[in-house]
């Protein structure tokens, strides 16, 4: 009771006591009243308040006459009540009123007219309407059950089977002696209770005094060791004319379950249960409690037997039972960075697709209020180590997550573990109320207290190895086991005096050990699980209503939202949760700038004392390479924990049958967003410090692409492995090959010859995203920088001419000469024919080409063929020499034009210093050895200035490292475009494997195969 109510009451009590001259007696009553309401220290405080006010009244009144006193009091009453009016809620005013009535009637005699008038005055000032005031008066003043009127606002709970006269509602409770009477003030939704009887009843742990009036608040329960508790929901249900529409019956038939390694986890479990029951599943460690729960909720599929809900098999016809089953696992499945409200809100949006935000908000608020979580709704949930809300509140929130969509069958795994006894009781009371509300609730519980044990309607006991050994009334369980073990006083299930049961007793009986001849306990049990199971089978009744009509009408409130809506909810939830996690934000958004500063600053080489010249910085290739690796790494780390962190939540949401695609897509979207920002800051800062000018967009696009690939890798491993540690150990395995096989650290030509090739990037390199990204960035930097872009085309033409003229022609002439001398083998003919055919096609404008359009060199060579070929080669040489001249003039003109464009004389050099880089040029123009032309696959292959050449025209995409154009579908595209597409294609592939959960499936398959090998089996 709040301080305001108490103070108001003290004043009003003082008025009554003063007027009736009952100061001494009144003081006693007030004292007794306070004793129940507040602690000793506060009692004195309020009593002093009462005394002072009484003295004040007496001092004023002593001079006047009695009649005058009444009028003075009336004025006082009005003033106090007006004060109260402004301070108290309507509900609280009802409490003041009934307490006042009770006080006025507590002096043994029936109060007179004046008292009634006084009460009426108070009621009218409080704006309590007449019928309600009358109800309060009659209820509060009643001294026994007979004194009540028979309105429908009353409920009596007693052990009499007889209904009461009139509209008085009635619940029979055989264990209760005396009468519990409830008053329902419908307009305010407030319940009062009075007890007439001699049992030491406890209302929420506070003892109830015979005949005194109490507020019966939400979730309240009246207990006594020997009685069946009376729950708030029992009472409200009675007042609300509640009827059960959704009858659920669950039947479990001979369920056997075997673990992956062949061990049997459950032995023919059978039972039936119906809605409105709270069923406890108990057993020692390893008895298979959680296994059973997971079979009942459909998570695990038994090898034998069936689980039916209203005749529908939950394992084979799951889709018909959508939304009926709710599961609350032992661990908290909360989004730790979201508030209590947000957790519930977004969860509801996923479960209640048919409602709009406002409706869901209403539902959420109502549920939070009913679970007593409204006060903390804006607190961040926090993780178990960094608690923002208490364990009990967390658990209640977990339950709320399931309750919001109103499943008919609820499975709860160890809801009380780790909770204080008070929290445990609260949580179990909540579950009890749910079952009373018509739900079927299964609870796996470990060591229930006596009170909790009594809450269960039914108890399922499992013994080690998964043997069912009991199913029935909890109290009867103790008697059953005592009897079986031939205990004395076997029929006593609970302590005679305190009414406590000792659930542990059951286990000590079940597991009691055989003593040896020295009186020491041995490891052998007196009665093995198997034997207990046999006893149980003997007494077990056949399943009642084992086959009910198939009936899937009941759908709960569940309505799956559309995929798009799911995506939206997943996305918003994820973003919100990330935004709330300051540490996460800080690390992820500082990581990129810090790495950029480190990388760019330390690699910014120049001659000490001089100015920084980009052209002379020997670390440019290293910088580009590290950019790629850093982006990949950032993408990987930011995503590697994403799914595994949500795994438990996903497990719960499995029951909602939500779209995995939507979930993954939301993850991908969020990660892409983060990667975009990360790579953006990285490029802006890195390139600015490093002074790579004018290529921000290019770098960002490529690094973002690489980061996304990293995201996809991260998500794949995140979805496939079982622990965060494994994932973090795995990251180097993914990054190191990307470093080594990128073609930068070690040239592809210099890899082990078993894996590499001299004419194209080896396959092992092709699967590295780093190689594609580095190549694209390097080639792009070379080709499209502010200086190089003008000269690239002409340089390319020149390099083709130089190659043809200085290498190809020389080789061809050599071949022809050897051919004439008869030094060539037969297989070389193909090469010669191929080369002449292709050259005559390319240089068809030369008259000498015609003779070689369909070359057929044979051994020995025909003189005519030889002459034609020589003639063609000579013509080609002439052509190339002219071509070189033309192109060098062209190049010179371009250089002059660039130089002329700048106003200053050194413009050209400045341009070069700022935009080009010698080391990068070296890297892209040389091949590491001097084999500029090699024979491969009956063709000559150019390995001369790779960046100035095209990939092979007959191969899809693949080519040498650093070529500037690649063949795709018969057309040439820039390496930039092609590589970008390749990385996105790789990412897309990873998206598919992610969606199909391919890696996880592969891993479990390999695990299963390993288990077949005896060595691993025994591990």
């Amino acid at each position: 009771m709040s301080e305001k109510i108490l103070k108001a009451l003290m004043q009003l009590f003082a008025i009554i006591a003063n007027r009736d001259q009952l100061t001494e007696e009144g003081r006693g009553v007030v004292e007794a009243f306070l004793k129940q309401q507040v602690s000793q220290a506060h009692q004195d405080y309020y009593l002093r308040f009462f005394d002072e006010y009484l003295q004040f009244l007496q001092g004023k009144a002593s001079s006047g006459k009695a009649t005058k006193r009444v009028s003075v009091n009336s004025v006082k009453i009005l003033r106090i009540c007006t004060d109260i009016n402004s301070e108290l809620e309507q509900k609280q005013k009802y409490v003041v009123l009934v307490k006042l009535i009770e006080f006025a009637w507590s002096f043994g005699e029936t109060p007179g007219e004046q008292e009634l008038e006084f009460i009426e005055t108070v009621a009218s000032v409080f704006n309590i309407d007449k019928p309600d005031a009358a109800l309060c008066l009659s209820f509060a003043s009643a001294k026994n059950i007979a004194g009540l009127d028979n309105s429908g606002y009353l409920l009596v709970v007693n052990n009499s089977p007889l209904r009461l006269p009139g509209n008085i509602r009635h619940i029979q409770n055989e264990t209760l002696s005396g009468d519990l009477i409830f008053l329902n003030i419908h307009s305010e939704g407030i319940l009062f209770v009075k007890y007439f009887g001699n049992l030491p009843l406890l209302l929420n742990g506070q003892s109830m005094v015979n005949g005194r009036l109490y507020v019966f608040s939400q979730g309240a329960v009246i207990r006594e060791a020997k009685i069946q508790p009376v729950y708030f929901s029992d009472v409200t249900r009675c007042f609300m004319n509640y009827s059960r529409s959704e009858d659920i019956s669950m039947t479990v038939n001979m369920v056997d379950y075997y673990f992956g390694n062949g061990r049997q986890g459950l032995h023919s479990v059978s039972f039936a249960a119906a809605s409105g029951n709270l069923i406890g599943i108990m057993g020692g460690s390893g008895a298979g409690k959680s296994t059973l729960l997971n079979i009942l909720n459909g998570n695990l599929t038994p090898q034998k037997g069936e689980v039916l809900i209203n005749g529908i098999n939950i394992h084979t016809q799951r889709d018909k039972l959508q939304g009926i089953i709710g599961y609350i696992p032992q661990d908290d499945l909360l989004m730790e960075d979201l508030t209590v409200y947000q957790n519930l809100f977004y969860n509801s949006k996923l479960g209640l697709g048919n409602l709009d935000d406002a409706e869901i908000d209403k539902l959420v608020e109502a549920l939070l209020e009913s679970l007593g979580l409204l006060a903390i709704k804006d607190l961040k949930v926090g993780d178990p180590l960094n608690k923002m809300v208490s364990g009990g509140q967390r658990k209640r929130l977990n339950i709320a997550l399931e309750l919001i969509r109103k499943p008919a069958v609820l499975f709860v795994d160890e809801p009380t573990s780790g909770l204080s006894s008070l929290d445990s009781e609260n949580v179990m009371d909540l579950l009890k109320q749910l079952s009373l509300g018509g739900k079927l609730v299964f609870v796996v519980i470990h060591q229930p207290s006596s009170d909790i044990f009594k809450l269960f309607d039914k108890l399922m006991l499992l013994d080690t190895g998964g043997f069912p050994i009991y199913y029935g009334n909890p109290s009867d369980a103790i008697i059953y086991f005592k009897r079986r073990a031939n205990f004395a006083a076997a029929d006593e299930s609970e302590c005679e005096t305190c009414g406590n049961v000792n659930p542990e007793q059951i286990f000590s009986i079940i597991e009691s050990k055989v003593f040896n001849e020295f009186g020491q306990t041995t490891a052998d049990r007196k009665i093995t699980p198997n034997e207990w199971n046999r006893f149980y089978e003997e007494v077990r009744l056949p399943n009642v209503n084992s086959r009910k009509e198939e009936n899937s009408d009941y759908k709960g409130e569940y309505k799956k939202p559309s995929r798009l809506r799911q995506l939206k909810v997943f996305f918003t939830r994820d973003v919100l949760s990330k935004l709330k996690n300051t540490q996460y934000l800080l690390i992820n958004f500082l990581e990129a700038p810090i790495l950029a500063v480190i990388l760019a600053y330390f690699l910014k080489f120049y001659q000490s004392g001089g100015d920084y010249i980009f052209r002379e910085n020997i670390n440019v290739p290293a910088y580009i390479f590290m950019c790629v690796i850093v982006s990949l790494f950032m993408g990987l780390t930011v995503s590697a924990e994403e799914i595994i962190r949500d795994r438990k939540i996903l497990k719960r949401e499995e029951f909602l049958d939500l779209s995995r695609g939507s979930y993954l897509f939301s993850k991908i979207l969020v990660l892409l967003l983060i990667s975009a920002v990360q790579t953006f800051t990285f490029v802006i800062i890195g390139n600015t410090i490093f002074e790579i000018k004018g290529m921000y967009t290019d770098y960002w696009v490529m690094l973002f692409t690489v980061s996304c690939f990293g995201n996809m890798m991260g998500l794949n491993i995140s979805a496939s492995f079982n622990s965060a540690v494994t994932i973090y150990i795995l990251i180097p395995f993914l990054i190191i090959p990307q470093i080594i096989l990128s073609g930068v650290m070690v040239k592809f030509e210099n890899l082990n010859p078993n894996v590499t090739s001299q004419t194209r990037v080896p396959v092992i390199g092709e699967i590295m995203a780093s190689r594609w990204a580095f190549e694209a960035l390097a080639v792009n930097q070379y080709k499209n920088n502010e200086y190089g872009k003008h000269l690239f085309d002409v340089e390319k033409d020149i390099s083709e001419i130089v190659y043809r003229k200085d290498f190809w022609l020389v080789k061809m002439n050599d071949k022809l000469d050897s051919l004439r001398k008869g030094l060539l083998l037969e297989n070389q003919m193909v090469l010669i024919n191929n080369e002449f055919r292709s050259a005559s096609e390319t240089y068809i404008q030369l008259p000498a080409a015609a003779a070689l359009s369909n070359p057929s060199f044979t051994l020995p060579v025909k003189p005519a063929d030889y002459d034609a070929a020589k003639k063609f080669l000579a013509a080609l040489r002439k052509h190339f020499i002219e071509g070189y001249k033309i192109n060098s003039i062209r190049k010179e003109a371009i250089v002059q034009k660039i130089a002329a464009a700048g106003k200053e004389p050194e413009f050209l050099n400045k341009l070069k210093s700022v935009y080009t880089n010698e080391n990068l040029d070296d890297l892209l123009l040389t091949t590491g050895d001097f084999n500029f032309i090699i024979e491969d696959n009956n063709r000559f292959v150019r390995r001369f200035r790779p960046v100035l050449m095209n990939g092979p025209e007959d191969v899809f995409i693949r080519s040498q490292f650093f070529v500037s154009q690649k063949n795709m579908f018969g057309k040439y595209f820039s390496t930039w475009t092609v590589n970008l597409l390749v990385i996105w294609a790789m990412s897309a592939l990873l998206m598919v494997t992610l969606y199909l959960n391919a890696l996880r499936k592969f891993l479990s398959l390999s695990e299963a195969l390993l288990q077949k090998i005896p060595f691993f089996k025994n591990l």
Partner: protein
Amino acid sequence: MKNLSVAFTAAFAVSLTLFSCGDNKNASDQMDDTTTVAQDTTPIDEVATFRFSYTIANLPSPIVIFDEFTKSDLPVDVSLLNPSGNVKKYNTSMKQAFNYGIYGVDLAYLVINERNTDIYNYYSASKTLAEELNLGETFKKFVNRFEANSENRDSLTRVIDEAYGATDAYLRSNERLETASEILAGSWLECQYITVQLLKNIDRTSSNDILFQRVWEQRVYLDNIAKVLGEFSNNPEMATIKADFDSLLEIYKEPADAKAIDKAFLNKLGAKLTEVRANIIK
């Protein structure tokens, strides 16, 4: 047509002796190609070709000159050389070609005087320009030999000679007379510059008399080079340089014979050479 092919053949033969002995096998291979190609070529300036060949035929190797320096106990002054860092400044093919010639002489000077610390820088500067001029692959053939012999003066001299010889042969077989002329002019200029800068500070004695005579002899080569360059002076950049070479010729008109090469002349010539060279290496 016939004339031209003769000219080419002559040019080739001479080229072998430009920087002493060349790579015989290589050159004869190339020659074979050249003669074939020449059969139906579009006419190039025959006068230029002739002049070019004529000039080359008479140009003494800088190595020979620098050897004479050593014999005459001339002081070594590395600061005269074109700093190797300048290589980054050369963007036009003309500048690249001239300086390729200059660096070749500088490299020879360093090798002869065994200034091993600087050799690598000049070698890589030459290499850079060779690549820019698309002579790179010819030049590169000598990379390994250069590196293997970097401690041995005589072998190194030989390698450099061969490398320059090979590039020259390459250029002419590819009808890149302009580039070849520029390289030649560059190396003549550098050789003359170093000689004059060293001589102008010492007295003429019998032991170094030959060097003064060499300076006098150069007027013939200068005349030829100026005429060859004149063939390409439609390029405005080249026109200025041609004018510079002409002004050098003017200075040579003063002394009557080799005996007239005195300090005053050398100072005057040296000043002009510095000016002309500065224009090229800047």
